[in-house]
């Protein structure tokens, strides 16, 4: 059974379809990268999957339609790492990661031992155990990002949506973060759906790429099949060469003095 199934999903914002009749299946354990130009519909599609925006059509997680799930039930299946997570500076890393246990708790309940263990496991996986009592306000950008991922892991959801997980990181931390996600995916059998702007990085890590333009799927397949010079020119309006180094694909922008439209 697919981890995520989208059937004719449309999202209208301000009377304009931002996501336009998308059908998509994501296999369990797969890492799917959503790529495409700004305004292509990547973030909105992620928000629809997480039921953060209303949509037409149907979305199912592990075969069950999200529309009929309770919020907490949905959140036990699916975690979200937002592009700009809010990290209240007065919370400790431990407290913040424990917030990931919310869907497992009753409305007014406190965290129990199981929750603290789940949070500790998540911290340990992200090498943050020693940071448990540090305030979020004292962390660097890369450490904060790890805390956010730890919170998503503490949620113990099998599907994780990531919106531009590396946007705020330097190249070293980008690589670390994505390597880590890859390891977590392998160890825990997570299904990852990530929106990414960096095509070269996306091609390195994702099994599969879906190119969205104006709310529609315009290409879907292995990174090397989706990332073509022609597709990048047409959908991004960019001139770039696609080069392959030992089977790894890189997108290399070409500087043009005269811009032809």
């Amino acid at each position, binding site marked *: 059974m697919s981890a995520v199934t989208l059937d004719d999903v449309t999202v209208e914002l301000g009377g304009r379809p931002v996501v336009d009749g998308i059908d998509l299946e994501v296999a369990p354990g797969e890492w799917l990268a959503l790529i495409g130009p700004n305004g292509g519909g990547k973030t909105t599609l992620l928000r629809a999957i997480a039921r953060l925006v209303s949509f037409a059509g149907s979305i199912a997680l592990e075969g069950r339609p999200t529309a009929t799930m309770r919020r907490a039930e949905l959140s036990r299946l699916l975690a979200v790492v937002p592009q700009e997570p809010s990290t209240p500076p007065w919370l400790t890393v431990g407290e913040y990661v424990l917030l990931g246990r*919310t869907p497992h708790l009753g409305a007014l309940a406190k965290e129990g031992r199981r929750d603290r263990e789940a949070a500790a496991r998540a911290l340990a996986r992200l090498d943050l155990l020693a940071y448990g009592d540090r305030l979020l306000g004292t962390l660097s950008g890369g450490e904060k990002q790890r805390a956010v991922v730890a919170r998503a892991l503490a949620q113990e959801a099998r599907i994780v949506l990531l919106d531009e997980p590396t946007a705020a990181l330097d190249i070293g931390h980008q690589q670390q973060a994505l390597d880590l996600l890859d390891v977590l995916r392998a160890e825990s059998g997570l299904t990852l759906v990530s929106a990414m702007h960096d095509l070269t990085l996306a091609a390195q890590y994702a099994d599969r790429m879906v190119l969205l333009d104006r709310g529609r799927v315009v290409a879907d397949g292995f990174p090397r099949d989706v990332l073509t010079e022609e597709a990048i020119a047409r959908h991004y309006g960019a001139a770039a060469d696609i080069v392959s180094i030992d089977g790894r694909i890189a997108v290399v922008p070409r500087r043009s003095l005269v811009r032809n439209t």
Partner: protein
Amino acid sequence: METAAARVAYVRPRGLTPLWAGAAVAFLVGALVIGVLVGPIDLGLGPILESVAARLHVPGVSSSLSPTDNAILWEIRMPRVVLGALVGGMLALSGATYQGVFRNPLADPYLLGVAAGAGLGATLAIAYLPEGLRGQQALPVAAFLGGGAAVVLTYSVGRSASRGRDAVTLVLAGVTVASFFTALQTFVQQENADTLQQVYTWILGSIPSSGWSDVVLILPYVTLASAVILAHRRVVDVLSLGDDEARSLGVDVRRVRLVLVVAATVGTAAAVAVCGLIGFVGIIVPHAIRMLAGTGYRALLPLSVVAGAGFLVLADVIARTALAPAEIPLGIVTAFFGAPFFALVLRTTRGGAA
């Protein structure tokens, strides 16, 4: 390799640490003692303690106070101090709650217009309700309706102006709503000058020395509102991450926010119904706690209740004594300290969201 048990030790919500809980309780107890001690007639700490012990039926202790002094203690000072504590705790808790659910460090029952709305509601009730319905019980209800209307209005005006992201816009909307409701309130008051002589003093904010009846009147509302809010204290931390993140963590944001705003507004309305408009308690107390203890809402909310209670009792002591035998309206005292404090918070906030 660490054991799971060792790992778990790293992960704990600080919650209420004994240090800060103890400090807050000590502050409240100190404030209560000062509140009961200070007054035109010197009762003395010893005799007061004896009288309290006698009331508690401690064997072998009898009050050494004269019947008049006993009456001053039990019918004037005690109820006033207790009422001040209830109102202060409630206003501070409501302020912290509004700050959490609106993700706005500048939210306060006074600045959001809730207090002005509640004042209008209560004034309308006094002026227009038929004699039979005008009993005290109608006041908190009318105040709640006015306060509820104000918070809805403020929130929608603020949202339409800035999509609710800008902390300062919400406060501007609140000030607008408050001015409008205050204008209406003043109009009603002038029109009914004969029946509303006492409204003017009440609206400036003061703790009435009217025995225990006001305490009894607001106790159920304050207890219920505080219990609801404190039961949600962990969820307020989740809400403080923003709507989307709270939703993706499984919280029914709309329902929880509604419950919390209603509770904070009920509590504020009850406080306004007996004490008028007392501003800035909801700003001063939670922010002072944040500065000192640097803590999430889980601990901030209970600490706000306790410290807010102590704060208003002390403010009332100043209101009673600064120009004795005259009284300064309590709302003036809290504004005197609150406005500069607000400026400080505004400076550190720079209009961003909490």
